[in-house]
């Protein structure tokens, strides 16, 4: 029997009642009295000089309140970048200004040129169309290698080149790695692309700015994963509004996948303009705008070389990547290809020597930033692809070559050559579990059955690790972060014993409202329905850094545990007083305080009531009330890991790939709600399979986004996916947080792309078709073309 409450119980999501009945309250559901609407006029050229903006006729149109151009933002800061990378030569990265509205030049299709505020969205759009725009189009730089070439057009005229930074990890190992590769018996090389993706959260972005003249207070309602971060960045760096006069509210948010971490121009615009026009200002993104204004993901071009000895032991690894930043630095863009990517190149293996070089490049494309997995999928993809290629070249089994190189269970804590210390893990255990669940022994029979139907069947194996629960503030500070990465919780016990938790993290699909109460229910022994989770409003939650990097339970949940521990400690003192016993003899179990070894007890609710009605209360020693706040700063990242397998069938006539089965064995440490974890893994797998087979942002040579709608951008649908087998019974609890949890939000998206590609290449190879690699997405035409080129 599974538990029916507390930690480990698969209880149903309480959020679903409102989400499935259409009663959620998303930002677009908010309409303020007197609100006006803004329409952003966006550039339709990728690179050009703005010669003239004629707004006179537009300003005179029906309903128009005011038109803004860059001139109106001369006293406003640019959008800040939250992470500074230092290049190999010791210089800081190039950090061009990221204006709210384009200043003089446009640098990508979709950049805001002007903003029209009007009584209705239609009037704003009509007037925006009437603005006379004269842009002298300049040659666009789209391809990263070309952008770094001699004489390439410059995205930013005031920078020496299109190079943002040239970063190495670990620089001291560079020559040793070169030498090891030179002298190795086998070197396996792979050049690959991790393609650009559009995040496509189900809810497009929305922002509403509001200003209260009477109190001089600003409010921004926005679709954000981290309202406190937005308040800090926008208040301090862009608009110069102190925190106590700026409130940021992120209510129900319909998915983020990273794209709603960042501080966007539209948010700053609506906040600023609301004060100028004296009306609330609302913007709701269309899906078309989302394609050209939401920060995009991935976009790496990589060469990876793996050196091995005769027995298949990894000797050294060298990875060189060009990472596309797009036209400007989005909030955390520089961290993604560096500290969230290079540090993961050890994977689950004992590779002694590793060197990673990343050159970040400006191009005339939409800015790129974190997207589900953020750097870790790119690391896992290249590593697991080159290992598969190595196994093939050495004639080894892909399972065996991985197992042979695993970090052993007795080697933890394990310090990698790329700056991380893995606290715990058991990669052999997850791989063994995978072999069992995926029925690897039965594969050959299934392959023959597929062959009888004219299909090529392949098996893909992959082992991943990720660094989650970002992260120790003092460490990330040394690495260039311009913010701390703790999180917070206020646990407010109400007089009759119910509890309201105000958390600094934010749920936009992660089920915090269901799972966080399970932790407190376990600790105190009261039912989950006595506990409410409040998040998403800087006015009523303590300063927290928000939700991304699978950090909510590991960091925010740990803060909640710490605060609850303080609550319990104080409640025990009150109980001791009520029971006339010594505090050390008080035990809390099932919502009751008892005196050890006696039948004397007092109920949780009687203690909480005493805290607020302190008639019989040790007032001289203890303050009344029962409310505690904790800030939790983790000692290390957490390191979820796992082993994945899938089987695919390739139709050799059309190139179409069908995913027949997918098994994901993950070690997430302790699990709060296995049903929610299953759901998180399912979503991650769907997104990762989407990347492997379907999704891609394609720009033409002029910088036009060819895949700017769902007519050409292929999202995964239910029938593109098999029924998943998901297992998280292999658990090595995190050693440094109080819950022993590691986080599960990104795993599926990190582990699945190489699993799928490995399976497709395996299918082709087993079918006698010599194909080493196909770049994602493995669309039918790409697979067919590869087959044709090889035959």
């Amino acid at each position, binding site marked *: 029997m599974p538990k029916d409450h507390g930690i480990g119980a698969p209880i149903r999501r309480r959020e679903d009642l409102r989400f499935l009945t259409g009663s959620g309250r998303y930002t677009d559901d908010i309409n303020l009295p007197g609100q006006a609407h803004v329409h952003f006029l966006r550039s339709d050229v990728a690179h050009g000089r703005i010669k003239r903006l004629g707004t006179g006729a537009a300003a005179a149109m029906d309903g128009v309140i005011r038109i803004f151009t860059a001139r109106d933002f001369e006293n406003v800061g640019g959008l800040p970048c939250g992470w500074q990378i230092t290049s190999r030569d010791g210089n800081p990265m190039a950090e061009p200004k990221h204006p709210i509205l384009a200043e003089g030049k446009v640098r990508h299709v979709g950049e805001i040129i002007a903003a029209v505020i009007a009584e209705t969205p239609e009037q704003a759009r009509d007037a925006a*169309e009437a603005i006379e725009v004269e842009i002298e189009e300049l040659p666009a730089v789209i391809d990263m290698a070309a952008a770094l070439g001699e004489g390439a057009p410059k995205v930013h005229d005031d920078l020496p080149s299109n190079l943002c930074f040239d970063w190495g990890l670990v620089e001291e190992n560079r020559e040793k790695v070169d030498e090891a590769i030179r002298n190795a018996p086998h070197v396996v090389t792979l050049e690959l692309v991790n393609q650009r993706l559009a995040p496509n959260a189900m809810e497009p972005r929305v922002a509403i700015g509001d200003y209260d003249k009477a109190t001089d207070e600003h409010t921004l309602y926005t679709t954000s994963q981290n309202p406190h971060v937005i308040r800090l960045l926008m208040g301090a760096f862009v608009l110069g509004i102190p925190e106590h006069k700026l409130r940021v509210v992120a209510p129900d948010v319909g998915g983020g996948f990273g794209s709603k971490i960042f501080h966007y121009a539209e948010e700053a615009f609506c906040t600023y303009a609301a004060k100028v026009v004296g009306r609330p200002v609302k913007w709701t993104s269309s899906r078309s705008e989302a394609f050209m204004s939401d920060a995009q993901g991935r976009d790496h071009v990589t060469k990876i070389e793996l050196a091995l000895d005769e027995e298949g032991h990894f000797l050294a690894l060298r990875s060189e990547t060009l990472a596309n930043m797009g036209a400007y630095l989005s909030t955390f863009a520089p961290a993604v290809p560096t500290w969230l990517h290079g540090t993961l190149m050890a994977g689950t293996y004992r590779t002694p020597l590793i060197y990673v070089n990343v050159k970040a490049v400006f191009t005339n494309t939409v800015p790129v930033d974190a997207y589900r997995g953020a750097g870790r999928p790119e690391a896992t993809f290249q590593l697991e692809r080159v290992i598969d290629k190595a196994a093939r070249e050495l004639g080894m089994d892909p399972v065996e070559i991985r197992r042979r190189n695993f970090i052993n269970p007795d080697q933890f804590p394990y310090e990698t050559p790329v700056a991380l210390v893995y606290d715990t893990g058991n990669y052999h255990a997850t791989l063994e579990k995978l072999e069992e669940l995926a029925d690897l022994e039965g594969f050959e029979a299934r392959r023959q059955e597929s062959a009888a139907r004219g299909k090529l069947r392949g098996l893909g194996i992959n082992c991943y690790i990720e660094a989650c629960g970002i992260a120790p503030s003092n460490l990330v500070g040394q690495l260039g972060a311009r913010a701390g990465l703790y999180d917070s919780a206020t646990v407010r016990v109400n007089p009759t014993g119910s509890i309201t938790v105000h958390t600094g993290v934010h749920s936009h699909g992660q089920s915090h409202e269901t799972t966080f109460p399970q932790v407190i229910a376990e600790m105190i022994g009261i039912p989950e329905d006595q506990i409410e989770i409040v998040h998403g409003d800087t006015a009523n939650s303590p300063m927290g850094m928000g939700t991304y990097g699978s950090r909510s339970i590991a960091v925010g949940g740990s803060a909640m545990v710490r605060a609850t521990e303080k609550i319990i400690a104080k409640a025990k003192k009150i109980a001791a007083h009520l029971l006339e016993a010594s505090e050390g003899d008080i035990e809390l179990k099932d919502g009751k305080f008892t005196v050890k070894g006696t039948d004397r007890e007092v109920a949780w609710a009687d203690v909480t009531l005493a805290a607020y009605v302190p008639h019989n209360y040790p007032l001289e020693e203890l303050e009344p009330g029962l409310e505690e706040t904790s800030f939790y700063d983790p000692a290390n990242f957490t390191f979820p890991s796992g082993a994945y397998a899938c089987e695919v069938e390739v139709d050799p006539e059309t190139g179409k790939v069908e995913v027949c089965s997918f098994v994901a064995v993950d070690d997430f440490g302790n699990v709060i709600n296995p049903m929610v974890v299953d759901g998180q893994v399912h979503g991650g797998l769907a997104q990762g399979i989407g990347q492997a087979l379907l999704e891609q942002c*394609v720009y033409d040579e002029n910088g036009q986004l060819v*895949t700017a709608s769902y*007519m*050409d*951008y292929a999202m995964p649908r239910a029938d593109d996916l098999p029924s998943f087998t998901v297992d998280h019974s292999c658990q090595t609890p995190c050693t440094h947080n109080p819950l022993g949890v590691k986080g599960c939000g990104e795993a599926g998206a990190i582990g699945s792309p190489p699993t799928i590609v490995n399976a497709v290449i395996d299918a082709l190879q087993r079918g006698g078709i010599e194909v080493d690699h196909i770049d994602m997405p493995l669309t039918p*035409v790409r697979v*067919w073309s590869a087959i044709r080129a090889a035959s």
Partner: protein
Amino acid sequence: MYAFEFVKPKTVEEAVAALREGEAKVLAGGQTLIPTLKQRLAAPEKLVSLAGVEGLRGIRTGDGVVEIGAGTTHAVIARELAGAVPALAALAGDIGDPAVRNRGTIGGSLANNDPSADWPAAVLGLGATVVTDRREIAADDFFQGLFTTALEEDEIITAVRFPMPKTAAYAKFDQPASRFALVGVFVARLDGNVRVAVTGASENGVFRWQAAEAALGADFAPAAVEALAPPPAEEMISDLHGAGDYRAHLVKVMTKRAVAACG
């Protein structure tokens, strides 16, 4: 969307009259038109909805003919023709998603003549007759290139008349994003001849692959197609989802599969 006038006539005559006044467009399901308007890619002064016109909906079978009212939705066709003409029902049931199928109509699809739409393949593949408010147009005359048909500006399709085939099948290869046909081939065996119509592939819209018709007329088997060269790649659409050579190849593959599905 720009502002427009909306009229909902009760008869075909009223609808035609409404179309003659001002710059008007027919709304017959709106699964292409409405998104186009929302993106402000078209600005008609007036929309003439056919939703209230009597007698445009429904399916009649008999005398070796299936007549489908132009206002019949894909969903109704998928449901009601499953027994009589499974190939048409299957084609209708694989258009778009449930929302599209319950709004979109066969007449709307044909009048639009999207080069990747499914219905043109069935109409041309079966040699159907397009019935309008004023005449009957043979399928071979109806389709005239991308988004172009024999219809006059004020002409309204009222029904489509299909001959009952001996066997027929539609084999569609989805464009991965839109799930329109990257290539869709409708093969029909009729009294005395075989017809093969291809959608999705050609720069000129739906077309008959006559080499395959001849080969299959002599020997109705996938092997007869195997021996053929694919249609000329340079006449095929080339885009992100497949260059001309891929589409030409798929025409052959899907034709074989449609023949095989005919049994």
